[in-house]
């Protein structure tokens, strides 16, 4: 299936997504990767507010290249999500609904997705230039000292994403390769 959706996603929109579906996502998303996640955990430990409203949020694991003159952002493809596995369950339990990145997630993250009816969307790893074209505005909102790892507020339009893990625990990184390998067996 293909969906055109706008953040924040409703409970109904989230629950109908299935691993392998395409989503063209528009609206506001926030960027955070390793260093920003670590600081977010420190904020929570100290009882301080996070840089953005985590409830119903979409977080994109990206460290873009600097924007050349005339562009809002440089190359902006996803980074490997697995490095955020240590942090994601806590954020999902606080209401974050969408994670955008690439690559496999831990069992703990998958369980947190199911528990909170969230979704993990895969952006095209290495397609930094194409993803850049989907970003309509970008602004650093926190931790500028982290450079490419600073937290940014992005407005995106029709960002092409694949549902990687859905709210029922469907997982493209397992079902995709299995479906292909099964097709080989059937062919024989």
């Amino acid at each position, binding site marked *: 299936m293909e969906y055109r959706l706008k953040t924040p996603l409703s409970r109904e929109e989230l629950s109908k997504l299935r691993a*392998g579906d395409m989503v063209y996502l528009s609206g506001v998303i926030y960027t955070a990767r390793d*260093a920003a996640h670590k600081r977010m955990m420190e904020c929570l430990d100290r009882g301080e507010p996070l840089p953005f409203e985590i409830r119903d949020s979409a977080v994109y694991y*990206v*460290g*873009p*290249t*600097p*924007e*050349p003159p005339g*562009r809002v952002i*440089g*190359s*902006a*493809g996803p*980074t*490997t999500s*697995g490095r955020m596995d240590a942090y994601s369950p806590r954020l999902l339990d606080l209401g974050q609904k969408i994670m955008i990145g*690439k*690559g*496999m997630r831990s069992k703990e993250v998958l369980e947190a997705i199911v528990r909170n009816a969230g979704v993990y969307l*895969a952006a*095209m*790893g*290495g*397609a*930094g*230039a*194409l*993803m*850049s*074209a989907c970003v309509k505005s970008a602004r650093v909102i926190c931790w500028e000292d*982290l*450079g*490419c*790892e600073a937290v940014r507020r992005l407005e995106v339009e029709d960002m*092409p994403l*694949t549902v990687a893990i859905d709210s029922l625990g469907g997982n*493209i*990184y397992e*079902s*995709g*390769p*299995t*479906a*292909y*390998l099964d*097709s*080989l067996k059937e062919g024989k």
Partner: protein
Amino acid sequence: MNCGPGIAMRRLTAEEISAAVAELCIRANRQLPEDIVGAMNDAKTSEPWPVAEATLEVLCRNIEAAGDMELPVCQDTGMACVFASLGQDVHIEGDFKQAVNEGVRRGYEQGYLRKSVVADPLRRVNTGDNTPAAITVELVPGDSLELTVVPKGFGSENMSRLAMLKPADGVEGVKRFVVDTVKTAGANPCPPVVVGVGIGGTFDKVAALAKQALLRPIHQRNQDEFYARLEEDMLREINLLGIGPQGFGGRTTALAVNIETMPTHVAGLPVAVNISCHVTRRASMKL
């Protein structure tokens, strides 16, 4: 300059080296080598699985978009691995290492490339200019300097592995380790990957061999027919794993396996696997 009877030294300035490195950093990040672009287009044409074909189509479009938009192909513009084949009859005026790092600094600034290097592995403060580069110098006969810049992304670098196998493990052991490394990496290193394999040498040399293997254009097989066949065997096995482009399933898990070898100890069989993503970058210049 005369450095003795009959020996003519070629002079190169630090500035010439910096300018070359800066240009190579920008070029490598915006424009993929012909062999990689060719292999991606071929994979797209021959991929039998529709999801995988569609994924490869997007990745090929991204390569074109980067050129059109003058943007890096991938936002991880890497740690700059700089390989220098330095002619022994070249005299460098200035500090070579500083010259290379100045080139990286300039290239990453002027090319709007991402600064992804931290000064210390545990205290993790960004150096702000993507220096230092990872520099490898090889002394060769002649009076020229050939520079190759390989911006190495860490999505794939992180999935690389090294093993000190036993001689009894043999070809099968090596093959199993390489295929298993790619399998374990799964979707994470942005497949389709290029697999650089080092076999032999010592603990440190084998890792260097695996990286060096990524410098060879991927349509060229190892010149030793035994290893050329092993490259093809491993590629065939890897492309039966089903991981596919982006790990969404499909045939094209790897574009190529490149093996480099060197003599080793009677007691050892070191193997290293350096994985590179579909954005396998390199750019060279001869001075």
